[in-house]
């Protein structure tokens, strides 16, 4: 192992000089993994995730990752991640679509075990009919697993949010897994200018002594310690322990908010917040909305945009505040079910003004013109209603 210059996450994320590179999303992600000083990577191939698994293998072969192997399937890869992270080392894995669903049992355990695993998911279609095209439907399945969830818009986000994920996941008052979600292909295979930090600066190694739950390594006291809570005893004390533990996981996720503000500049990016109409979107839909609002403004529509970077903990108060004066909120999404619109409707007063759509899925694209057209239809409808 080469001698490494290690730096704090604050320095790397907020202060380090940046160099421009022309990278696809997967390459930007690999650059982040390289700088994150990761100990153990276990992966299983699936389209469109496979490329990052290959790139991690190259990083391991070059000595940047200490341990790496291809596991037997996603369920057991995610269980291996539990083992590695329980020992108190820094871990990384990634998956896509059906792999996410196969791994749901360990995914539901990660937060409860308080494991700061960082796991990008490259979203794609799941279920019937079979589909490998970009889709953000998987986030819906992950919403209540207790994990922190970021939604990536671009290769630049993929680089930044992965490093931010490690910084936030490993805070002693948080110590939870982070899903860094992108819509497959749109981000993983799109090439653009990405500003990255120097490649000879790496994050400080993970320190398991800062974990709120002792590492499973027989070095920490007391030895009579089950890593998880007393789940299986039938008495009041263990019910109470289990109930408190579940609440603490959610409380820890809420405590991530201050770190999200510090490392990510908050959970939202807001353009023209005083507009009459707001488009609220996450991931690739936000990238399309960014273009759409400029086109709509040229046509004289008073429209702004809210990019939701953090899906969990959901920025409910911020969104409710932004929604107060707005006449109409439109939520374009790259999935069939419109989960983001449901989330927004649940936190906005007078939520009849929140409209889900356009919903694009199964590999279809969402040209900004479609968003503008839908917006015009909604405005006409709103006028009629008034």
């Amino acid at each position, binding site marked *: 192992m080469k001698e490494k210059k290690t730096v704090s996450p604050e320095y790397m994320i907020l202060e380090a000089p940046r160099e421009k590179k022309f990278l696809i999303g997967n390459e930007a992600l690999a650059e982040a993994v390289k700088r994150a000083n990761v100990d153990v990577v276990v992966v299983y191939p699936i389209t469109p995730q496979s490329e990052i698994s290959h790139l991690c293998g190259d990083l391991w072969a070059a000595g940047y990752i200490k341990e790496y192997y291809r596991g037997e399937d996603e369920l057991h890869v995610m269980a291996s991640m539990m083992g*590695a*992270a*329980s*020992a108190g080392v820094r*871990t990384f894995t990634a998956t896509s679509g059906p792999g996410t669903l196969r791994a749901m*049992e360990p995914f539901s355990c990660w937060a409860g075990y308080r494991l700061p695993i960082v796991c990008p998911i490259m979203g794609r279609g799941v279920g019937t009919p079979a589909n490998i095209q970009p889709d953000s439907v998987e986030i819906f399945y992950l919403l209540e697993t207790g994990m922190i969830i970021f939604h990536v818009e671009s290769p630049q986000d993929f680089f930044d949010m992965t490093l931010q994920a490690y910084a936030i996941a490993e805070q002693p008052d948080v110590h939870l897994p982070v899903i860094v979600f992108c819509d497959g292909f749109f981000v993983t295979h799109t090439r653009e200018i990405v500003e990255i930090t120097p490649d000879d600066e790496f994050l400080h190694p993970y320190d398991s002594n800062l974990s709120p739950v002792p590492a499973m390594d027989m070095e920490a006291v007391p*030895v009579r310690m*089950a890593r*998880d809570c007393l789940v299986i005893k039938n008495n009041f004390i263990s019910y109470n322990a289990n109930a408190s533990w579940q609440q603490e996981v959610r409380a820890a996720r809420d405590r991530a908010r201050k770190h999200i503000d510090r490392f990510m500049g908050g959970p939202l990016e807001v353009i023209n917040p005083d507009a009459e109409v707001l488009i609220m979107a996450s991931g690739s839909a936000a990238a399309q909305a960014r273009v759409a609002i400029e086109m709509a403004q040229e046509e004289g529509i008073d429209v702004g945009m809210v990019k939701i970077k953090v899906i969990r903990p959901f920025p409910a108060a911020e969104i409710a505040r932004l929604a107060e004066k707005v006449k109409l909120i439109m939520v374009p999404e790259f999935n069939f079910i419109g989960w983001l619109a449901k989330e927004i409707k649940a936190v906005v007063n007078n939520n009849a003004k929140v409209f889900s759509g356009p919903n694009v899925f199964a590999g279809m694209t969402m040209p900004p013109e479609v968003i503008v057209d839908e917006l015009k239809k909604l405005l006409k409808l709103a006028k009629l209603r008034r």
Partner: protein
Amino acid sequence: MDAVKIAPGFEKIMPQEYQDLVSDGPYGRNLSVKDLGTFKELIDEHPLCAGCTLTLSFRMVLASLPNPENTLIVTCAGCFGVIHPQISLHCTIAPFGTHNAFASGLKRALKVKFPDKNKDVIAMAGDGGFSDIGLAPTFHSWSRGERFTSIMLDNECYANTGGQDSGMTPEGVALNMSPLGKKFPKIEFAQVAKLAGCAYVATATPTKPRLLGQMIRRAILISREIGPSFIRIATVCQTNYKLSPIDGYNRAKGFESQIFEYFTQEAQEYIEGIEKKSPKTGLNLGVGAENED
């Protein structure tokens, strides 16, 4: 050994049983099954059925660890899902069937974290955990040559869920999901272990405690240096087979004919080398003290 000690000032608030562990536990003492009854055990009370031979086996396994101060156990759903918080080792419960995948990640991470130290990892599950729901990760952990020990506590059924047939239930036995008798034979799991590449495979019974202890030590030492090891401990669930404790014990005694050991050549040479070095201690191999902090 610092991991066991109580921080100054906290002696009074730690329970008596923990204080006993510090003053009279097995850590760093190189004890074995024949010392049972003379020290504070890693488990000394449990909520499982009275007279259970599987629990007796479990107690013997814990008493046979060559290096308890550096041993970690991964369990999954099953009868010891219920007792794992009471084991005085770092111990966890993996999602059902994933124990060998969890142990693979754990062992490799411990090797990264402590490159110069032995950390013995044991994946312990029941017959259903290994042969049915956990077959894929078990097989793959062995074929990858993962350096930990797998111990199947085979009571010939799913016991904790109320008595259903497993892959390890013998043909013809009527249990709750085989009301007309199980229609297919018990899996030859030792053969699976050999084919998948285990360096050491054994079947033990709790009715031969010293032999069981020797097998546990051999399995752990071989998994440290040579390759994966697997032990099946043959018992029966007397509760779900509707046997009295003494009949359960006698049934386990009947399994003594199944006792066997398989070594790869490399594993055999390694064990012979160690056992030659300390012939007088016999079953108590005298290994482990060298691991002292």
